[in-house]
């Protein structure tokens, strides 16, 4: 890792107040708790974890939809965590967020042309003719015919809506794109098409992706490095193949053991992890995974382990012993 990272996140936190029936604050939900990592230019970093682990909060905090409760985000050498929403506008064209369901994030009463043009009107000074030229070229690159400009969202299929959602982001020529669950709700054959498109666009626009997903097989296919989150923390981060080959954190191990593997062993015969993640507003003391962990020792209840290791880091006291 010789280049300067395009994005550096240091101790990023985002807390949400938990309110009781009278609207008074009765606790804190730590959706993101001191998360640190770096992303290199041109890389795809995968963020995986189960629902409620904070992966979407991470994406939204990076995109400026949530303001961080603590920590810093450095994007292209510039600290952006504490910027006001108005100042963030200057960063927005370079750092874009792709919504989970583009069908719902398109205005049903706007034609595709109007939806695609809006970011250009907001963020650039281009003349109408230049805007039109850019729309047409982007549309071509995401594989949609120009005639689709005059259609409305309901006239497109799910896969096509996703292409429009992507085109809308790419019109601004961003450097960094946060993809939040980009394939959830798609059929496998459509998913294959969309994933291929992501790759082609990454080449064409030299994009850096933050790829948030709960689908580990898709992440394995798409990402250079993967970070595993559990209850607001990164518990393990490593190059993709190494993570899948030799996971160190017990949670990563169970997560990998839960993926059905066609033609291989059956998870229903072997899967052992019991219980469900605890309420993030009432975290257990010490390591957060301890109550469900088969390898927990008394020391796990006392210390909250930090990430240890260089390229392959895990937040587990027994990480070295447990390497298989």
């Amino acid at each position: 890792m010789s280049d300067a990272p395009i994005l550096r996140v240091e101790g990023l936190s985002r807390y949400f107040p938990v309110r009781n029936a009278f609207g008074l604050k009765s606790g804190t939900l730590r959706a993101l708790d001191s998360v640190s990592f770096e992303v290199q230019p041109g890389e795809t970093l995968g963020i995986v974890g189960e629902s409620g682990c904070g992966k979407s909060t991470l994406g939204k905090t990076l995109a400026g939809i949530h303001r961080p409760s603590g920590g810093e985000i450095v994007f292209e050498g510039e600290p952006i965590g504490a910027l006001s929403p108005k100042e963030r506008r200057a960063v927005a064209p370079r750092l874009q967020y792709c919504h989970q369901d583009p069908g719902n994030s398109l205005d049903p009463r706007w034609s595709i042309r109007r939806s695609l043009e809006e970011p250009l009107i907001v963020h650039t000074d281009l003349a109408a003719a230049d805007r039109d030229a850019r729309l047409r070229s982007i549309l071509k690159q995401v594989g949609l015919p120009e005639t689709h400009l005059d259609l409305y969202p309901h006239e497109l299929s799910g896969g096509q809506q996703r292409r429009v959602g992507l085109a809308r982001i790419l019109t601004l020529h961003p450097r960094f794109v946060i993809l939040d669950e980009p394939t959830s709700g798609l059929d496998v054959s459509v998913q294959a098409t969309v994933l291929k498109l992501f790759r082609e666009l990454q080449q064409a626009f030299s994009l850096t992706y933050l790829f948030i997903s709960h689908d580990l097989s898709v992440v394995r296919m798409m990402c250079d490095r993967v970070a595993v989150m559990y209850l607001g923390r990164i518990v393990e981060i490593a190059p993709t193949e190494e993570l899948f080959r030799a996971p160190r954190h017990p949670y990563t191990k169970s997560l990998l053991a839960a993926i059905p593997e066609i033609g291989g062993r059956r998870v229903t015969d072997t899967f052992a992890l019991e219980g469900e993640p605890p309420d993030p507003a009432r975290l257990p003391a010490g390591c957060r995974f301890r109550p469900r962990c088969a390898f927990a020792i008394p020391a796990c209840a006392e210390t909250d382990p930090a990430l240890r290791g260089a390229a392959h880091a895990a937040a587990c006291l027994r990480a070295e012993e447990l390497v298989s």
Partner: protein
Amino acid sequence: MRAPDDSLLKVDGLRVSFATERGTAKVLDGVNLSIRPGEIMGLVGESGCGKTTLARSILGILPSNARHEAGTIRFRNDDLLALPRSKVDRDIRGRLITFIPQDPFGSFNPLFPVGKQIMEVMKWKSPRREPGAWGGIGGFFAPYPRHRRRADREAALEMLRTVQIPQAEDAFDKLPHQFSGGQRQRLMIALALMPQPDLVIADEPTTALDVTIQAQILKLLKQLAKERGISVLFTTHDMGTAYEICDRVTVMYAGQEVETAPVDDFFRRPSHPYTVRLLESLPHPGRELREIGGEIPALVSPPSGCRFHPRCAYATSACSAQRPDISDVGAEHQVRCYHPATGALVA
């Protein structure tokens, strides 16, 4: 073909269409399916292929714009479509054939404790209820004798313990939102098994769950079905899930069933071109992604013959003229294609 008598449920040439604004959508086009006692049958396909419509046809809960055009659904010795509606309502649906929905939250009434809702089901569908017992005027005066209520409650608690709901007695008094998604799906499984059915129809029961919870639920469902000898019709769009839980798999495409095979044979030697392409489009390390060109056809004006032919690389004029008959390509491995693939897929 096997002797017709060894199946619990047999769907034969079922045609169902829906009246829509754009015309008549031919959603099921001569579908055949059979489920044997104690077998977990997977019904896989992409969205819009008709798997939910097929499941709903068997349950007899199609929406009012649906029309049954041809075919039979034989369950044990009765044709479900020919039986009087009241008989199906009272003694079959919810009693001998039960249902596990995709979204367990939407299926509980949020205002009542789950125990009350469980007992409501047991009042009508308990195995201890006499078949054909008088239901009163609209069910309003229906008796629920105390001895049966007590026995039903015991059985319900026992079932909650079986599906590993902690503190079953307390759980009876909790409201649905006090359970997590995985626990609600456990409650749904319990509810589906309480009437001691012969067949459970599970419509994408793990789609809304995380992978670790999905693995737990699949394990539980498989174990309970096998222990009790209950047949399951398991619809899913996820091939991995189908591999995990099913004994046999049927693939549907645009309202037609295209291939049926035992699960291992299905994944090792897929035979229909659609099945082959579908399996190839799964993300797999060390293999390039391959998409299926084209799009799923609109069911208002479906292609003639085999509905996959416009997207199929092997299609000939015969494919568009007439839908292929069922042919055997292996032990219990049937395919409806004029040009079945024979090469093995590297899974």
